[in-house]
């Protein structure tokens, strides 16, 4: 059975489940606001979201690992994740200002250089390993892993674009990557808030309420985001921008150099003795 179509289908379905799970507060039907069932659903919805997101993540990771893994990539990914998790460990020990985090720098650049699957795994596993090491395993983890995975995966989209524009090794390449890092610095906050926002549901204009309709929900979320998270996320976005701008060029050169060393293919040819044994 040909399975060429299966892989894109898995990416599509899982990403769709991930997006729908995160955006579920906006999709819920109108009309049950204030009722007792609405109150109950406020409590059980985040749990359902975590389960859905966790399942989609499992399938996506299973698919990606099967296609991207060989001994060299496993070792490379393991060590890069260790470096990134160590950076997160240092971040937990010495917290930076606002939402600043050094982990997105390597996720963006490895996704850009080594491709979408590698970038996705880099994002997912960095968050998982650092959570295991810093005691940060919690219901928020699937959302964090999924979002960080998207950061790494989407960085690969820039590669054909920048190569097509002949910007490889140019200053513009770093500026565009820095802008991309800043964009995800903001988006990471926007997406992660979607996990916590319904959980702290209440009656105020900035809180989620079951069944108030899509536009009302969007308005409430916008108010909530502007009030609580915008400044925090601007700091994260600026941090990503500055890190990529400052360290991006030498890091890209190093990653590209090692890419050549890691992508050799070893094809063993059977020795004459082994061949004669096989034929005999």
């Amino acid at each position, binding site marked *: *059975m040909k399975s060429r179509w*299966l*892989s894109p289908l*898995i990416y599509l*379905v*899982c990403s*769709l*489940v991930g997006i*729908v*799970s995160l955006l*579920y507060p906006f*999709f*819920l*039907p109108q009309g049950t606001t204030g009722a*007792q069932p609405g*109150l109950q659903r406020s409590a*059980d919805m985040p749990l*359902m979201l975590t389960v*859905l997101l966790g*399942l989609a993540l499992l*399938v996506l*990771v*299973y698919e990606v*690992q*099967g296609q991207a893994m060989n*001994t*060299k990539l*496993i*070792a*490379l990914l*393991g*060590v890069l*994740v*260790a*470096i990134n998790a160590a950076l997160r*460990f240092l971040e937990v020990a010495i917290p930076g200002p606002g939402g600043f985090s050094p982990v997105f720098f390597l996720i963006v650049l490895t996704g850009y250089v080594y491709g979408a699957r590698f970038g996705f*795994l880099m994002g997912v596993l960095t968050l998982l*390993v650092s959570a*295991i*090491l810093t*005691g940060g*395993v*919690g*219901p928020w983890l699937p959302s964090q892993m999924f979002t960080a995975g998207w950061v790494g995966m989407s960085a690969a989209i820039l590669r054909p674009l920048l190569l097509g524009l002949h910007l490889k090794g140019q200053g513009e390449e770093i500026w565009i990557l820095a802008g991309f890092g800043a964009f995800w610095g903001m988006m990471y906050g926007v997406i992660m808030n979607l996990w916590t926002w319904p*959980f*702290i549901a*209440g*009656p*105020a*204009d900035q809180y989620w309420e079951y069944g108030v309709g899509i536009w009302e929900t969007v308005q409430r979320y916008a108010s909530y985001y502007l*009030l609580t998270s915008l400044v925090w996320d601007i700091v994260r976005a600026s941090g990503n921008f*500055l*890190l990529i701008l*400052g*360290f991006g060029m030498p*890091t890209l050169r*190093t990653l590209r150099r090692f890419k050549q*060393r*890691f992508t050799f293919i*070893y094809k063993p040819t059977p020795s004459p003795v082994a061949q004669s044994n096989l034929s005999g």
Partner: protein
Amino acid sequence: MSTQLHTWTWLTWLAATLVAISVTRNLFYLTLILLCLLVVYSFIEDANQRGAYPFSLLRFGILVSVLSMLFNMLISHFGETVFLTLPEEWPLIGGPYTLEALVYGLTNGLVLFGILIAFTDFNQAMPVRMLIRLIPRAFFPVAVVISIAVTFVPTTIRQFYQIKEAQMLRGQRMKSLRDWLPLVMPLLVGGLERALQLSEAMTARGFASAAPKGGNTAHRLAMVVSMLWVMAGWVVSTRAGWETLGLGLILAGALALLAALWWAGRQVPRTNYLKEKLRTGDAIVLMGIVVIGLALYFPFEWIDRSSLYYSVYPLLQWPDFDPWIGTALLGLGLPAYVIGLRKR
């Protein structure tokens, strides 16, 4: 393992705690759950040889609760018990301040604190190697990556400080962001060189040299179908309003997905050097969880389950308290009893 409960017992306990926290907004029940979790935390910390948690959990909980309370009071002006009114024309903070908003914020803070402390208990009780062992067999490449990463993190941190010392000896000063470059680049290059050596060693020892047993198209197809099933259940539950049918579909899809992963994992041989055993302590904790499940979900006539769905709005009143539910929830503290018993 110093806390000596089976990994699956801890996982079941964690799931039961999260369910208990999720189903109620009753302050009495939430306080009971939090007390149980704090007692378990203190016993784990006592039994653990890894030392205390890097920050004060209680202080953090108080901070979260107070902030949540104040934040909700400032921006939510619903409720009937008004104790202060600011001019309406003041943006955001103008309007009546109510006791209901204050208590609602406190409830949210307690729920968040409860989730945090439940996971802190779990993280403190479970050694890293046990967490890695939880990774299903189907994910063996990912498990190897995580094992490498967990092993290399201390080395990486050590190398970071060595590079820092070496650069300081050469007169390097940390004045601006660019001064970090001589620290970061050797760390990255050194790590990548180690990755090369590691991959050569793994190849030389025959890692992943065996051909996979059969194709995996059937597993992947089963997973896609299961995901679509889960998705359909979610749509039926939220859009069509058939909650029971939707939840049933989600549950069936999730089980089918887990079965497909288990099926895929069967293709991967695995050797266990340390097998955990279920003991009497595990049975005690699991029995407690069964009692909680019965109290929360089994339709006993003598249990008043409406007390779980307490709301402070529109007028603050004392929440009801069902002694059966309260007593059952105390079961979440049983790990502390088992750890204490073993210590004696």
